[in-house]
């Protein structure tokens, strides 16, 4: 383990690691991806507002500076794009977002969207598309890996819970559809259960209602393998963040929301959680980068010939 006189010293050691790896491996370009645990719950405070405040807080080893922020800071200072695979704040800070923009570096997060939330962001848009109501959504997980163990701790679970709970609210827009989504009971539980190891079971009980309010139920039992679902996301993010840097896209990369449970967005924008909106956004960004027409799915030209 690295030791240092304060958090800034540790961050400087991480920067040295980055430079050493680049030299040793002969890599022409680098990307950094957080693929470690959920940290204890933190909210944005004064230490996160400006780079100066952030650096001062590191020097004072302020508890507001989480380990993941040291990595993100080190990456950006070394001109390395950073993607956040956990629900931690990390680069979701005004100070680091500004740093990324100034240095023209892509950043993004947060929290890989793999199993239960991926299903949620497919099913919820389907109900909304058909104007079916939702009374409640109960999601429980049993998992036995280190992730499950960490999330058994209430402070870490709080970080995760925020990431998992936000999704439905944004997709369903209860303010616009009060009769359908004004009174949704949404519950998320994570239970550490060692016998399953990395093989997780995500259970969802969904209470929906239709025509004249008649209730119906949907049950989803997803027996998934956490890391088998996450590995391809790590690969895609490594390749797309590298592409983003070569295309001089800087700051938050919202077009990669497809991969995240809590996508970062520009200030004032609500995140798009619907998996297929995210997919369209990603593909249209690729088309735009390469100078191809956007696909609108209008298709009237096939029927109205000139």
């Amino acid at each position: 383990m690295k030791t240092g006189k304060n958090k800034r010293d540790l961050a400087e050691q991480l920067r040295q690691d980055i430079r050493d790896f680049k030299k040793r491996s002969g890599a022409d370009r680098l990307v950094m991806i957080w693929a470690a645990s959920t940290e204890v719950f933190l909210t944005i405070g004064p230490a996160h507002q400006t780079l100066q405040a952030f650096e001062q807080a590191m020097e004072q080893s302020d508890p507001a500076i989480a380990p993941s922020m040291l990595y993100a800071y080190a990456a950006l200072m070394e001109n390395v794009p950073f993607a956040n695979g956990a629900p931690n704040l990390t680069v979701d800070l005004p100070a680091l977002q500004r740093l990324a923009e100034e240095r023209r570096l892509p950043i993004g997060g947060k929290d890989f969207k793999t199993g239960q939330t991926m299903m949620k962001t497919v099913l919820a848009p389907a109900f909304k598309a058909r104007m079916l109501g939702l009374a409640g959504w109960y999601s429980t997980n049993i998992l036995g890996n280190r992730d499950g163990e960490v999330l058994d701790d209430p402070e870490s679970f709080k970080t995760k819970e925020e990431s998992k709970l936000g999704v439905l609210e944004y997709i369903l827009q209860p303010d616009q559809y009060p009769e359908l989504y004004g009174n949704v009971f949404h519950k998320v539980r994570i239970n550490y259960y060692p016998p399953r190891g990395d093989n997780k079971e995500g259970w969802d009980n969904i209470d929906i209602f239709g025509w004249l309010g008649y209730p119906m139920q949907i049950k989803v039992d997803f027996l998934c393998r956490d890391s088998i679902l996450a590995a391809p996301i790590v690969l895609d993010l490594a390749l797309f963040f590298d592409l983003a840097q070569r295309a001089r896209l800087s700051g938050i990369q919202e077009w990669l929301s497809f991969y995240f449970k809590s996508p970062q967005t520009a200030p004032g924008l609500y995140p798009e959680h619907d998996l297929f909106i995210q997919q369209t956004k990603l593909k249209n960004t690729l088309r735009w980068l390469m100078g191809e027409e956007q696909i609108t799915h209008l298709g009237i030209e096939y029927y109205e010939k000139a």
Partner: protein
Amino acid sequence: MAQPSGRDITPARGTLGVMLVGLGAVSTTFVAGVENVRRGTGIPIGSLSQMGTIRLGKRTEKRSPKIKDFVPLADLKDLVFAAWDPIPDDAYAAAVKAGVLERHEHLEPIKDFLQGIKPLPAPSTSITSSGCTAPT
């Protein structure tokens, strides 16, 4: 219809170093998976960049290249890896411990490669675990 001009993209020359924070279940499954794909002993299922296609133009044009043939992405053969972790296990030992991939089928044949990835020490305040991330 007027074609937009597109963006000037620097080609993906040379190697891309992927630095991972955490060398647990997710990281080792990713790294070992890439190496298996490179050696032709696995398919990158679940990866949009490797498996996905993208429709271009009208449906009648029948243009749907693979994404990796459409945009200039780094090639898998050009990836190199590093990781930080508080636990000093190399990627082989960490992958065996994680127990995600079949040892004989997917880890043993690339043992030398995985043993070459030794974690950089994580900062002592770090709670980075050798476990994995939180992709629930």
